[in-house]
């Protein structure tokens, strides 16, 4: 985010609010890459990511005149894009997925089921094209509410505070969700890398 933040200071809010097209084009140029990536990580479909990208900037142009500057421009764009992504997920799943389904504060964190140390696997296994694909698919298995937090925090690198602004959640809710998302992904990655370890003959006899 540091790179984006520095860019942020370069934009003239009065010009953006007045609908200045050249200034808006600069904004699009600066943020379209990250917004496209956010869409890809949220839905894992290039067409959906492109729809999110276009809708985000169409809405941004429409509502810039009302942008009050209390949050940063990037936070504001992330918020529009994340809402677009969540709406699209709801539509795709064709079931009424509540964004709050993962919010139940009383629900305890999942107990880790798989205890297997795969950390020592060679880097080229951990970062192989297949592993990366699996990791992306694992993110898609998170509920939308957990996924949004995980993508913003651990992939886009937003702070807890920025994420709470984007999603309109308390900081403690962001932390809880991030924790649950990470534990869930750890579980999924353990299943995957466990199989890879067996395939490579790296599991010692006696290990579960």
């Amino acid at each position, binding site marked *: 985010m540091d790179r984006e933040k520095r860019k942020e200071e370069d934009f003239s809010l009065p010009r953006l609010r007045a609908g200045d097209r050249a200034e808006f084009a600069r904004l699009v140029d600066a943020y379209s890459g990250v917004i496209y990536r956010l869409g890809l990580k949220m839905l894992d479909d290039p067409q959906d990511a492109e729809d999110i990208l276009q809708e985000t900037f169409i809405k941004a142009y429409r509502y810039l005149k009302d942008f009050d500057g209390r949050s940063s421009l990037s936070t504001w764009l992330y918020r529009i894009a994340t809402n677009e992504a969540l709406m699209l997920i709801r539509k795709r799943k064709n079931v009424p997925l509540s964004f709050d389904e993962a919010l139940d504060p009383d629900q305890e964190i999942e107990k880790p089921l798989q205890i297997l140390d795969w950390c020592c696997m060679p880097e080229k296994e951990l*970062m192989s094209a297949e592993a990366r694909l699996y990791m992306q698919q694992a993110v898609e298995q998170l509920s939308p509410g957990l996924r949004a937090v995980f993508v913003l925090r651990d992939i886009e690198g937003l702070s807890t505070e920025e994420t709470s602004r984007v999603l309109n959640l308390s900081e403690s809710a962001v932390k809880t969700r991030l924790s649950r998302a990470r534990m869930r992904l750890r579980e999924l990655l353990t299943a995957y890398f466990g199989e890879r370890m067996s395939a490579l003959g790296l599991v010692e006899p006696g290990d579960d």
Partner: protein
Amino acid sequence: MDHEHCHSLLNSLSDYVEGDLSEELCAEIERHLQSCENCRVVIDTLRKTVYLYHATAADPPVMPQDVKERLYTRLDLNEFLNPSP
């Protein structure tokens, strides 16, 4: 092995990995880790999980040129496409 204790620490593991815990709680977790192999593995693999996602995210975002062109067309910004650097 004190499984009750393991379970009560679970909620703090992500914060622990983040370095986001009070000194007191940190020390408590570290004491527990010395005697609990299971939790050590969970922490190590959790940390590695976060590391791997960070590593894949480090690549700059790549937007195909045709996606960019369609975006600029949709926004009626074609005159600003590919400004000289």
